[in-house]
Structure formats: C-alpha cells, structure tokens
C-alpha cells in the first residue's frame, strides 16, 4: 500500500473509513437488492460469513493496492494484489495481480515507491475492465488488509466514479489488530520523557515482532502476501481457530 509520502502522517488516521462493524450477512442481502451493477449484485449475493463463524472456517483474501497518492479524492489505484488464504495455508496458485490505469496523474513520488512507471500504466486497462474478475475473486471471502483506510475507501470511491455506486464489505485489519496491543493505552509521562516512542504498527515493523522474514514491500502482490502471513502469525499468537470472526473484522 502507499501511504508514506512526505506529506503523509507517520501512521494514517482511520477516521475516513466510515463503515463500521454490523450484521454483515444482513447488510449484504440489503445491498444485493439495491445494487444496479450485475457484478456488484453477484458479489453481494455470494454472501459473507456470519459474525459468530470461527476463524478457521472463514475463507479469507488478503488485498493490497498501490495508489498514485494518499489523497482519496485526488489519487487513484495503480495496482491490485490478491492472495487467498485460510488459517492453515496461503495459496499463491490462486493469487492475482493487476496493473490498472488510474484516472489521476501518476506522481514521480509514487513511482519511486511502487516502481510502476508511466508507460506500464499507459498500457494498463481501466479498473472497470477488471472489476468483474476482481469482485469474483473476493466474493464470499473476508478481505484482509493492513490499514483499512486504503483499500476499502479507494475501491469505494473508484466504483462510485465508474459505475455510480460504491461498495461495502467487512475487513480484518492487521494494523488495527496491532494497534489493539500497542495503542491500547498511551505511553506514560516518564516513558515519553525518556524519549520512548510507541511501537510502530507499520506492516514491516509488525512483521518483525512475529519473526516474519523481511520482504521488499510496495508491490501489491508482495504486500498482500506479507499481510496474509501477518494475520496467520497474529492468530497463532493471540487468537485461536475458534475465535469468532466478529472479534476481528470491522
């Protein structure tokens, strides 16, 4: 994912992700009735796990976007990585990766980060052309992201612009799972005075805490894999296969 531009805060704020935990199966049924686009309707009709489903029984898919920038209104999606998983295995054979042509301009800063160049983007299809495949690949699954302030709102905005309707779905946010541990209470006065900083909950730093290997991030597919591995590690250390999915998703 892309959020490390010089103007961006150290850790992005979650306020703009307005969707909140709710009875997702019921919400999907409603949305299926309202959806006009057939691809979107099919997505909702495929349904989603009920909140009490144990994690072990939930099909998951890690998703990561590279974007032209951090600003939801002025930036667009450049690439999409998807890696399906469950608690036992991450399946690369079914992983997907698309480069798409954003309607926003590719800034030099973002090219430095994700390495996708103007010429690659120029030849890439518009998101509309891959939307059917994308939605088919994530339907019926719970999406896993690191920092829910990116993928879900960016996809929502992109769809509004293209097909005139947005998208809603639950996500498990591995960064938020880290925040629960490391942001649960602020550092005390003395520790701040001693110069301690709160533990970083960025993807790379979070992985280190679980002894996951170093990956070169900022490729959507690698980042999706990195996020999938992080979730497996978080569950192995802190939850259990029986934990209801509702404890994790947002």
């Amino acid at each position, binding site marked *: 994912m892309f959020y490390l531009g010089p103007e961006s805060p150290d850790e992005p704020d979650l306020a703009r992700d307005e969707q909140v935990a709710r009875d997702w199966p019921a919400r999907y049924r409603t949305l299926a009735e309202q959806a006009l686009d057939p691809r979107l309707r099919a997505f909702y009709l495929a349904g989603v796990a009920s909140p009490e489903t144990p994690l072990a029984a939930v099909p998951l898919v890690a998703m990561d976007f590279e974007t032209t920038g951090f600003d939801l209104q002025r930036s667009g999606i450049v690439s999409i990585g998807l890696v399906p998983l469950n608690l036992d*295995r*991450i399946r*690369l*054979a079914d992983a*997907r990766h698309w480069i798409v042509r954003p309607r926003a301009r590719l800034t030099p800063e973002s090219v430095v980060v994700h390495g996708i160049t103007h010429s690659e983007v120029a030849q890439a299809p518009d998101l509309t052309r891959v939307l059917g495949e994308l939605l088919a690949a994530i339907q019926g699954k719970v999406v896993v992201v690191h920092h829910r302030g990116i993928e879900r709102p960016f996809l929502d905005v992109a769809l509004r612009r293209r097909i005139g309707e947005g998208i809603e779905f639950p996500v498990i946010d591995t960064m938020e799972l880290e925040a629960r541990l490391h942001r649960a209470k602020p550092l005390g006065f003395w520790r701040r005075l001693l110069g301690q900083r709160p533990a970083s909950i960025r993807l790379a730093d979070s992985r280190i805490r679980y*002894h996951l*290997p170093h990956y*070169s991030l900022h490729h959507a597919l690698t980042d999706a*894999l990195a996020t999938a591995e992080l979730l497996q590690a978080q569950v*192995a250390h802190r939850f259990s296969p029986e934990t209801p999915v509702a404890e994790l998703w947002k």
Partner: protein
Amino acid sequence: MQAEHLEICDFLRRHPPFSELPEERLNWVASQMEVAYFKAGTEVLRLGDEIDALHVIRSGSVEVFRRNGDLYNRLSEGGIFGELGLLRDRRVRFPVSTLEDTLIYLLPESAFNTLFEEHELFADFVEVEDRTRLRQAVSRREANELMTAPVSALISRAPVTLSVHSTAREAAIKMTEEGAASLLLVKEDESGAATAMAGIVTDQDIRDRLVTPGLDYDTPVSEIMTEAPISVAHNQLVFEAMLVMLRHNIHHLPVMGRGKAIGIIELPDIIRYESQNSLFVVSSIFRQPDQEGLAALVPDVRACFRRMVAEDANSRMIGSALAVIGRSFKQRLLELAEEFLGPPPVPYCFLALGSMARDEQSIVTDQDNALVLSDTFDPERHDDYFAKLAAFVCDGLNACGYPYCNGDIMATNRRWRQPLKVWEGYFSEWIERPSPEFLLNSSIFFDLNGVWGKTEWAEKLYHLIRTKAQRQPRFLACMARNALGRTPPLGFFRDFVMETDGRQSNSVNMKRRGTAPFVDLVRVHALAVGSSALNTFERLEDVIEADILPRGRGQDLRDALEFIALMRLRHQALDLDAGREPDNNIEPENLSEFERKHLKGAFQILSDAQKFLRYRYAPNRAL
C-alpha cells in the same frame, strides 16, 4: 496476467535444490507455493499423518525427530523436509516441530512431482535417502576418467619385443626403428613364438648401463635389461599404475593380460600434472644429499598436494601419493643414516605404522614408526647403533613436516625397537590376552608396512596378526570397543556442528570424528575376516567379499568414507591456499548447503555402521 512472486523467487534462487532450476522455472515454482506460519513449539508434521507438500523453511527453525523421539536434525532458513514421505507412501516419517517462530513455503505434491520428473539435480537432491544422494555426489566427483579408467585404455599399440638372446645393438636399432623408448625382451620356444617376458630395456638403460660404462655394443641385451620387471594387470586402474610408477620410481610399466605383455605404458602416457608432480617430488627426495635438502622440499610436497586436490583426484589417489612421498623421505633418511653411521651390525626392518602403512596419508600427519631387528640382535653391542639410526630418522622426519608422535610410537622408543621374536611376542600377547587399556591407543600397530631393509619381516608380522586375530573374539571385542570410542556428530545447524544430544559447537575435527572412526571400524571387520589388505578401501572390499555386512552397506561405507576423507583433504588444501597452517577442523560456515547435506548423510552411515559393530562384536565382552 501471470503474477510475479518476486520475494519468493529471490528466496528460491538462493537455496538448493531450487537454485539449480532454470530461471523461467523459478517463477512457476513460486506461483505454486503455499505458505504457512507456525509459532515456536508447534507441531508441523505428526508421525503417520498424510503429507501433501515439500516443506521449505523461509524463516525460523525446526527440529526433526526419529520415530523413537530422538533428535534427527535441526533445520533453519533454506532447509527442506517432508521429501521422504512424499517419495514413499505420503505419510510423515519424521515428525517435525518448530524451534522458533517459523514461516514455511510448501510446494504441493503435484508441483514437487513435476520438478522431480523434469530436473535431475532437483531429483538428486531430494532423492529417497541420504546414502543415495551421497553416492551420486561421490560418483560425480569421480568423473575424472584417468582416475577410474583401466590401464588398458592407455595402451595405444602392442609392445615392441625382441628375443632375449639379441645384442644391445640390435635392441637399440629396433627401438629406433619403432620409435620406442622401451623394449620388452621375450623368451621364445623352438618355433620362434614368444612365450614369456624376460625383461625390459629402456633408453636410459642403454645410456646408463651400456654407453657410460663403455661396454661393447654387442653385449647381450640380457646383461643390461631389468629382469622380471614390475608390471600391472590390464584391468587395474590408471591411478594404480601411477602409484606403482611412483612407488618404484620407474617410468615404463608393462601391462599384462592373460599372462602376456599386451602393452607398455610410459610416463608420458599419463600426462596428468599431479602424477608428474608427485613423481618429481619423489625423485628429488632421492637426490637430496642431507636432511636440510629434504626439509627444503616441504613446500614442493604441499604444492603437489594442492594440485592433486585442485584436479579432483580422489582420496585414495591423494592418500597413496602422500604415503609414497612419506615413505620416500624415510627411505632416503635411512640411506643417509647408513652412510653416516656405517652399515648396520645386524639386519633390520624399518616399519611405517598407521596412515602411511595404509596409504591414507594427509598433509597433516605425525610420524608413527618402529624398528624390527634381527633375532641375532644383542642390545649390549648393537642398540647404540639402532638408537642413533632411529634418532637420525625421527629427527629428520620431524624436520620434513612429520612431527614427532605424541604417543611416543617411534623407533626412538626402546620398546618399539626390538628383535622380530619380541615383536611376535607383543602381537601374540595383544591378540590372545587383550587389555582394553593397552589397545586403546595402539590400534595403529595393526596397520604396519615395511619401508626399508627386511620388509618381509613386516609381512611375517602381519601374517601372524591376521591368522591369530580372526580366532580371538575377545580381541575383536576390544578392538570394536575402541572403534566405538569416537562418534560422528549428528549434523549441522546454521553455523554450528550439532551433536546427537542437541549440543552445538563451532567446528568438527574431520579426523577424530570422521576418518579415524571409519578406519577403526573397517579394521575390526577386516581383522575378523582375515583380510591381508592395509588400505581401508581395500579392506572394505575384502569385508564386502566376506559378506558379513548387511546388503548394500559396504558400498554405502565406501561412499561415505570417500566423501569424508575428500572433504578433509579439500579443507586442508583450502587452508594452504589461504596461507593458513592446515588442520583437521572444518567450520560449518565454510560448507555449502550441498556439502552439509552430504556430510550429514555420511556421518549417519558411519553412526549406523558403529551400531552394527556393537551388535556384531559385543564390545562389552571386552570389559
């Protein structure tokens, strides 16, 4: 579009067996992978469970166990496991648990099978058993044809022959006509057909034995020929022929087939640099006028050793060449000693013991020797001479890179400077009334070889050993007990050597933990079957012939010993290349992943063979 799994490809590219795959295959392999995370202390594979993927450790570490719960191996990043189960019955054969938080890449069975079918090196690497893998590694190294080809492959034409009744002039003319540097002289029957080889004459003989002494050219050739020359059989290996040339310092060697000479091989036929080089060293040893001259040859010996290793000679070839060189030093020192001290008052035989006797010398070796004296030896009158002779040789050897023996097994020790009948008494006593304490440090006495003087006494002693030992189970039990005193490590983990109890150390002594226990083990079997061989590989052939080992194990032992011995020699050569004093230690950080795997396999074979020794000779009887 096909997704590119950059991180996974990068990782695979760095680790065997995937590093052996073509680049275009790697991305396919990466795209087939599954990934799973296990926190520390979690069971990854349970004995008997179904297995559906090859496990590749991406990060972290695991412990592999035997069925009985013993630690079998520890693996870290890049390690693979589960291949045995996949190749056999799709059941877990070695349970695995994580030692640390571990991320595993799993190659599903179907992709594994595809790679196994299509890529030979991949298949070799994951092949059913370590021992098979080891055999392939050893045989790949032996691709060098001169090391494995029979002598007959070098014969380009029938030998040039002439009647033994010819004159020297006729011989010279024939050699010139045929462009031959040597000529075989044959006996003939009434019809004129050649019957048997009588001798050989060479260019050098004509120069040294005819022209220089000023003999008449019509002198019978039989007067200047070498009678009954040393020869080799047509099916012996080229390197064995080289060793014969080295040992006897000769440059022309008749090759016999069905009792007749079928060709002559000459030094130029074997244009192997190492042979020329070791021959060169041997002949310069015999030209040195004094001990200082001999000591000055040490760099040549080392250079010769490095070249042999660099040219992929096998351990037998190197071990023999170094033993020949060592023997030559002894022989020249004894010649010089006799010049200095005068002729010996009674006949004697100078013995080489241990690795030199076995033709298994390395560049790091001490001297083990002894003197067998005539039974007419009278200590009062003669010992002063032999004490001086022994000191001369042992001091000389020490100066030539063969340090004194720590255990004082040297001819300078009066106990090991005794008449033949005393030696016969020693061996009878050791074999018939063995004491484990004595035999503990004395196994090298059972590898003995005469290098100078009455060498037939050495043969006599060895004959006594092998006829007595075979019938003495308590002696064999004692020897077996000693052979079990040193065990190999379990394997390697990261940059450590791992012991069977899980302890870790920084290096492994390849002699103490590798070649020496091997030699000890094979010696026990060899004595038990009455083998007359000294070389461990030759002993092993006799043991295999006697059929006392479980089927196939002899061949496994041969491969494992070759691998360990060669590894030891190669690391000594590396030490020399780097300007370090060579030793027997190997540090795991200097081993490739392949070498570690093969070494672990070889250690395993040694360890199994030690168990068999324990079972067969009941060493506890020795207590």
